[in-house]
């Protein structure tokens, strides 16, 4: 699980939002103009590896616009891709949980009663709280905080503990995630919740928070499934690209996709790609505080590939998305296939499964294949709105 792996060993380019750029300039940190996969030039920093905590912190304070990786192949790096994807998705979920819990808090009878009683000190979405004051208040109620946290978490975690479909490892991950969600709850909420513990309105808001916690723990599955889908997309684009390159390099041979299992052939392809700076790109566009409506809690992922088969890739992806598979296991497709020979294209069926899971958990997923003619690139784009 990503959270246990503090460093992800993948060289990345990180581009910054205007807030991030401002912070870097103010602190006299050097910025570079980075050429991105789509050809654009952005301010950012290239890193040899990523520290999980600092990446999540930078996403949380809206300093990161995008994270991009460029490689000749992603094989052997799947674990790191899974970790990176989960880190980014969890951070978006923590952030959204913070907003949703605060909205529930503002709409709760607790705050409505407060607002009726103190019309001159109304608490609403526009209220700003003196940070030092809230922190002092929080210190004064610190001994009661675990009690409120327990009130929220206990019934939810009891359900997790009793779920026989989960392994001990999965339960530990959910306990950990639950704690992380608790940390996302705003300080002012903790203060008010402690002060109102035992009141009737308190129980109402606690039940709402329990509902949100259950919902967001379930949404964690999206991070896992998205990471798997992404690896399938990477394998598909990588093998399609390798096949094209191999056919150019070995015109005398009728290269088939199975021939790519030959390590020597793959090394020759990789060398050729390195010499020609012909790379595969994976880009995560993390939404910031941008002015446009609807960009918040949005994650856009793109896999770029230099291929002459744009239309064929577009067709294959669209076919898989259109193919509704409710209740069907991947085994059905193997049974339908005439041979047991497996093809990387089969992994594109994950798109349909992922879409179904997203639908169940209230997350929208859109997939699109586009072309960047100036760079001769085909991009497979996945957009998730959490």
């Amino acid at each position, binding site marked *: *699980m990503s959270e246990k792996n503090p460093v992800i060993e993948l060289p990345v380019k990180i581009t910054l939002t205007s807030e991030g750029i401002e912070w870097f300039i103010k602190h006299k940190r050097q910025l570079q103009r980075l050429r991105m996969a789509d050809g654009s030039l952005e301010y950012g920093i290239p890193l040899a590896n990523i520290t999980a905590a600092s990446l999540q912190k930078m996403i949380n304070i809206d300093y990161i616009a995008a994270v991009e990786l460029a490689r000749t192949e992603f*094989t*052997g790096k*799947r*674990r790191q891709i*899974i970790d990176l994807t989960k880190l980014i998705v969890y951070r978006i979920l923590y952030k959204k949980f913070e907003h949703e819990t605060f909205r529930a808090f503002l709409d709760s009878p607790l705050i409505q009663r407060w607002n009726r009683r103190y019309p001159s000190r109304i608490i609403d979405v526009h209220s700003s709280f003196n940070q030092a004051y809230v922190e002092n208040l929080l210190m004064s109620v610190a001994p009661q905080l675990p009690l409120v946290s327990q009130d929220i978490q206990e019934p939810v975690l009891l359900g997790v503990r009793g779920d026989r479909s989960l*392994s001990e*490892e*999965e339960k530990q991950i959910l306990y950990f995630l639950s704690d992380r969600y608790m940390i996302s709850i705003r300080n002012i909420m903790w203060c008010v919740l402690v002060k109102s513990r035992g009141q009737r309105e308190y129980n109402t808001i606690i039940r709402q928070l329990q509902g949100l916690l259950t919902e967001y723990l379930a949404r964690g*599955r999206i991070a*896992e*499934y998205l*990471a*798997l889908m992404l*690896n*399938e997309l990477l*394998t598909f684009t990588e*093998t399609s690209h390798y096949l094209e390159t191999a056919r150019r390099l070995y015109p005398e041979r009728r290269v088939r996709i*199975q021939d*790519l*299992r030959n390590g020597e052939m*793959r090394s020759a392809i990789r060398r050729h790609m390195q010499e020609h700076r012909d790379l595969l790109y994976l880009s995560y566009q993390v939404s910031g505080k941008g002015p446009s409506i609807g960009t918040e809690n949005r994650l856009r992922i793109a896999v770029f590939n230099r291929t002459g088969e744009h239309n064929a890739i577009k067709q294959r992806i669209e076919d898989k998305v259109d193919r509704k598979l409710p*209740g*069907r*296991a*991947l*085994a059905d497709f*193997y049974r339908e296939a005439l041979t*047991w020979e*497996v*093809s*990387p294209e*089969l*992994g594109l*069926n*994950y798109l349909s*499964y*992922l879409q179904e*899971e997203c639908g169940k958990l209230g997350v929208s997923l859109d997939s699109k294949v586009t072309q960047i003619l100036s760079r001769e690139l085909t991009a497979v784009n996945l957009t998730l709105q959490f």
Partner: protein
Amino acid sequence: MEIKIRQSGHVHILEITGEMDFYSAFRLREVVQKIVAGNIPYLVIDLAEVPCVDSSAVGTLVSVHAELEKRGRSLQITGVRGSVKKALELTRLMASLPIAGSIDEAVERMRTESTESTEATSPPPGGP
């Protein structure tokens, strides 16, 4: 990806280490085909040291299972956890594959199966 073979009684255990993907999963099938040719009745595939699998690896597990079933051999898959489990859940294969909680549990299941099949083929007591 590496495959190590060891034996526990008449159960053969294939311990796989490393990422199992399009480039490597076919080797598992080759090993299983050799094992099938060697008339080995019980096989365990242990994935505890596999950090992740792609759809080709999942397909290989499905095809190996189907092939062994067709030949009347018994298969158990163990060490299904983390991303490997998630891949099987997403593709709804958890229920279609013979998954055991541990190697010990898999071996025990096969031992029971072996005893039951011996009893079934033995003449009933008091018979001719």
